[in-house]
């Protein structure tokens, strides 16, 4: 609860800080605000479940864990953003302000107890993201990405609203608990069809936000076109919030009609895995590959939703955390490397930009290698346990076939994740020594350390949630 209020206020403060002469104050101020929000978040730990705003917002340990991941990711991303000083066109105050506002939206999605809250959360997050995607004003690709994202996103929101309307029509309520009560006592008939249709449309809207196939078409273009720092933001925070919302939706309101929706989610999960992994293999741009890999990770997370068994909750939290840490590392290294190696003034985001990275920059190569191993799900990294918990959740439900497909797809994943490891360690290239700001270095090292720590001791989170 507190971080939502805090960040709403502090976001406005950030905008006002933009009027000050010194632009250097913005970055530390934003980091400070995020730390305050993180502390505020965990004040309510183990106090829950608490309901706020006329029972529209719910705070329990699950909400707080997801919020914690979101705020931690945001802190790391802001820390490596470098203050946007290198571009004369940039408006740092607005960027930071929008980022803080979008976090408010993300946290509302995590804790919603009422459909309106979900809608507002999604919109706050999305509108901020549309703007940030297009923030590189003079860049054609950035403009295209923003427009594409906006048009498709608005369309998906339409579906979502329509779904909510139908749900309201069927159940007479926007509240999750009321909908759950209705769904468990409902008889087959015209009313149930409206409920089913409403659920499906709502799911379509949400699946678009987490870039699940077949609603993924915007993802590669938008991820590639957006400035890398905002791509990182999108691929970690939007995805975590989206899955938290989906989990809450399916786990509270619709558990009783599991038999209706599980196969739909299962098929979407399989399709997402196929599209994401096979799409990623044919990419030459590292950034675009990461976009497809983001799709494939949505597929793994959907498996946990499909199963919706006892370990699912833990699996989604752990996976989101592992995925966010590695993604931040991967994009963080990409930003440094692509800035040094430009083609016609544009940053070079291809695999060959990484050739020979390990020789001159062993630290960056190591950070990149660990993050790739984690994304690929190799043991001793957090990513392995993320996948493992996902698979156990499916096994507990007895859906083994989906695990087999996921396993095959993780083998495909190794292929494209290793391409960049091979480029940086085994290929020769004229790489210069890249200068890294000490703070930037610390953030990358912390993320890498956490990835390995969770890989060695995944039990740290046991019995927490």
């Amino acid at each position, binding site marked *: 609860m507190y971080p939502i209020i805090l960040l709403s206020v502090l976001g406005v403060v950030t905008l006002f800080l933009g009027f000050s002469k010194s632009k250097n104050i913005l970055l530390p101020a934003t980091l400070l605000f995020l730390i305050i929000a993180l502390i505020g978040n965990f004040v309510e730990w183990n106090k829950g479940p608490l309901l706020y705003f006329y029972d529209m917002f719910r705070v329990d340990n699950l909400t707080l864990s997801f919020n914690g991941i979101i705020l931690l990711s945001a802190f790391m991303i802001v820390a490596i953003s470098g203050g946007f000083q290198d571009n004369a066109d940039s408006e740092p105050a607005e960027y930071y302000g929008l980022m803080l506002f979008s976090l408010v939206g993300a946290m509302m999605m995590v804790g919603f107890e009422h459909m309106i809250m979900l809608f507002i959360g999604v919109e706050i997050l999305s509108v901020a993201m549309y703007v940030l995607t297009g923030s590189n004003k003079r860049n054609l690709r950035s403009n295209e990405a923003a427009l594409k994202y906006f048009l498709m996103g608005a369309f998906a929101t339409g579906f979502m609203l329509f779904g909510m309307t139908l749900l309201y029509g069927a159940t007479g309520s926007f509240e999750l608990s009321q909908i759950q009560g209705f769904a468990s006592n409902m008889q087959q008939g015209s009313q149930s069809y409206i409920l089913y249709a409403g659920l499906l449309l709502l799911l379509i809207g949400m699946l678009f936000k987490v870039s699940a196939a077949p609603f993924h078409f915007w993802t590669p273009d938008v991820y590639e076109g957006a400035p890398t720092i905002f791509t990182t933001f999108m691929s970690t925070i939007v995805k975590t919030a989206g899955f938290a919302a989906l989990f809450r939706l399916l786990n509270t309101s619709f558990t009783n009609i599991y038999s209706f929706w599980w196969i739909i989610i299962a098929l979407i999960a399989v399709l997402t895995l196929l599209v994401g992994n096979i799409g990623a293999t044919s990419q030459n741009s590292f950034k675009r590959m990461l976009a497809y890999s983001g799709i494939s990770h949505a597929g793994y997370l959907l498996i946990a939703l499909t199963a919706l068994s006892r*370990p699912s909750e*833990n699996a989604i939290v752990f996976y989101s955390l592992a995925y966010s840490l590695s993604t931040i590392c991967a994009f963080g290294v990409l930003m440094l490397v692509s800035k040094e190696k430009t083609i016609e003034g544009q940053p070079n985001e291809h695999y060959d930009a990484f050739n020979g990275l390990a020789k001159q920059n062993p630290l960056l190569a190591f950070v990149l290698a660990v993050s790739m*191993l984690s994304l690929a799900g*190799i*043991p*001793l990294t957090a990513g*392995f*346990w993320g996948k*493992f918990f996902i*698979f*156990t959740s499916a*096994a*507990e439900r007895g859906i*083994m076939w989906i*695990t*087999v497909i996921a*396993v*095959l797809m*993780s*083998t495909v994943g*190794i*292929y494209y994740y*290793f391409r960049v490891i*091979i480029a940086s*360690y*085994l*290929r020769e290239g004229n790489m210069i020594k890249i200068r890294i700001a000490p703070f930037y270095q610390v953030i990358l090292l912390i993320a890498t350390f956490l990835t390995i720590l969770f890989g060695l*001791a*995944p*039990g740290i989170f*046991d*019995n927490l949630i």
Partner: protein
Amino acid sequence: MLTLLLILLPVIAAVITLFSGERLAKTVALIGGLTTLGLAVMTWLQFDPAAGTQFGFKYAWVSSGGISFAAGLDGISLVLVLLTTFLTPLIVLSAFKHDYKKPASFYALILFMEAALIGVFTATDAFLFYLFFEAALIPVYFLAAIWGGENRIKVTFKFFIYTIFGSLFMMVALVYLYYQTPGTHTSEITAFYQLQLSPQTQGFIFWAFFIAFAIKMPLFPFHTWQPDTYTESPTAATMLLSGIMLKMGVYGLIRFLLPIVPQGMESWGMMAMILSVIGIIYGSIIAIQQSDMKRLIAYSSFAHVGLMAAGVFSYSVNGLQGALIQMLAHGINVIGLFFIIDIIYSRTKTRFLDQLGGISQSTPHLSIYFMILLLGSVALPLTNGFVGEFLLLSSVFHYDGWLGAIAGLTIILGSVYMLRLFQKSMFGPRSKWVEGFQDLTASESAVLLPLVIMVFWIGIYPNTFLKLTEPAVSQLLQLVNN
């Protein structure tokens, strides 16, 4: 607790090696390897074969899931731990004569590999086993990919994806088994032994395990990664792969496949046996054709491991004991042979038999060591290969007379390719490539001498090791037969 020390000691040594600088790295790594060997021998002296799993420890790891960080030693584990700790310092020592770039990372990776291998052989929790099984891949991948030959990138990549593909199936099987355990689930291997599974399920699990282990060993037809990887890797990595890592597969068959799915064994064992026997013959025939010495040994290793697998699939005391003793023998011989090839290659810059010849004229020591290791490999009585091969063939013969007879051809074919290797390289007219060939240096002898001693030790008195494994093996077979 001793087991935990055995796993941790190489890790600590590896970290020290990594930070010890370029000059000291190899000495530190050697000391680390020898210390671990000392600890393993100490464990051996305290070991009581009849007492089952010993020196164990168990820490809650993912406590909500019943997954624990648990390991311990029984006879089977101990023998393989001894092999690993004995070979690792020799592998380190064998690399001394090369000037590898970034030596600190090179030797540290070897020690990391040792830790992962000891972990595989001692884990008593199925998921811990899996974790080490996969983790062992990473150091050896980088060893082969960074310090390897010309085609290393492509070849090692294929190797990596191939083997990880196999083990992922094992993971699905393990996750499934884990959810079959009663109550709050547990992933202890012994709990898996108690499960009552339907024959059909056992069939699926049999194949999931079989593919994982068959790729690792490798068995026919999953061997296509092996010759290229062995050839392209630096010798130290080839030694790790063939000397120790291959044993992970055989160990997996013994520890998981036999006792967990005995009915699956009954219905599909014949098929697996046939594949193994095909591998024996196929590997031998290709080895006869090879001109590249490293490839020749690679294929011979492929043939030998086929026989070990066939022994395991016969699920008899002789078969399992034979497989275990043959694992030791093969590890020792193959490392010796790869080292000798490395010596020849580093002096002549060629590995091709048709360019070599007449080396023995100037190298009495090398010739003797080479001959002894080679005879061990073709299973001459009183050498280490004989004991294992005899037990294995007798078990296969008991299982099925025809298959036994075909597998028996390995003795003849083995002598053909091995003696051809010796004759073409060491005898005959002296080729221009081998001019000025020096005999062994002191450090080279220091690697070969312990190996040769072991060849005779196991050949003359195999009981030292057979009696270690005997109780564990009969206990295992009791499980299978129930």
